[in-house]
């Protein structure tokens, strides 16, 4: 069989999943659809964004949904030099953990910084919202460095 031409064909597997959110995560996505951001207050008084349904320390159910800002500061970041299909942006960008104003934890999102030299820990960033929102993390198109827009 040494002279057999070995065939190859594209095989595309698609999973059209949707996930139920539950009330707390649902509130987060509802707020995104309405154009703002919420977190949840933990039992030790911190504001967790994105929210958790249960307290990460005591495991108690959390029920106080609180609004936070749509601007904040970069806690840590990593540069995506070559973008892949289905990533949030089609040009190089930074993945970043962003501590929004009023929050105590970092939200993973992207910063459309253009150039990694402009990124730094502690940088101020501002959400850029989509005009048409559906209740999805992509309702925030990206964050941009403050003072650049």
């Amino acid at each position, binding site marked *: *069989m040494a002279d057999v*031409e070995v065939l190859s064909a594209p*095989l595309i597997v*698609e999973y059209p999943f949707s996930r139920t*959110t539950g*009330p*707390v995560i*649902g*509130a987060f996505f509802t707020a995104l*659809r309405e154009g703002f951001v919420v977190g949840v207050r933990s039992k030790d008084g911190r504001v967790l964004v994105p929210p958790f349904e249960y307290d990460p320390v005591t495991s108690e159910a959390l029920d106080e949904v609180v609004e936070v800002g749509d601007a904040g500061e970069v806690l840590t970041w990593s540069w995506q030099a070559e973008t892949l299909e289905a990533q949030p942006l089609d040009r190089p960008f930074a993945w970043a953990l962003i501590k929004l104003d009023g929050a105590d934890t970092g939200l993973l999102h992207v910063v459309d910084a253009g150039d990694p030299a402009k990124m730094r820990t502690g940088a101020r960033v501002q959400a850029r919202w989509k005009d048409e929102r559906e209740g999805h993390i992509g309702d925030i198109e990206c964050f941009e460095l403050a003072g650049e827009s």
Partner: protein
Amino acid sequence: MAEETTLTLPERLQGVEPVRSIRTPATLEYAYSPGKAASLFLQEVAKKRLVGQRCPVCKKVYVPPRGSCPTDGVPTEEQVELPHVGTVTSFCVVNVQFYGQAMELPYVSALILLDGSDIPIMHLIQETKAEDVHMGQRVEAVWVPDEEITATLESIRYFRPTGEPDADWDTYKDNV
């Protein structure tokens, strides 16, 4: 039942229709290679031929061939051309719609043991009512028009009953 959680919501979320689910689609893109043995099989399909391979030790004929015998662990190099007729060993009537499904319901997916082979292939049974499909039923391949035949099992549109008497149990009992 879990206890209903009463949330304290900011004013802007009160009286607003809540989001209950989110889209989380996943797509996996592969380049699939069937390997040498199945490539040869598919190239023969493109010529409207079904060719399996016989194990030199146990003499079983595998179709589509994988290039070796799973029992004896030896290469299967002898090519064996098979007829386009076989026996239903097992089947499933599909009544449930699912994503990506192209067939009209109900339809029947069956394992078909081609005459002279020792492992069944999976294909569709049509030109009969779903409730009439049964084990032992004799079926034959219906190919797409010659000019549409390519190196894929989709070149066989489906199998249909031949009308012959059912096969004897002994002829397919090892493949159920």
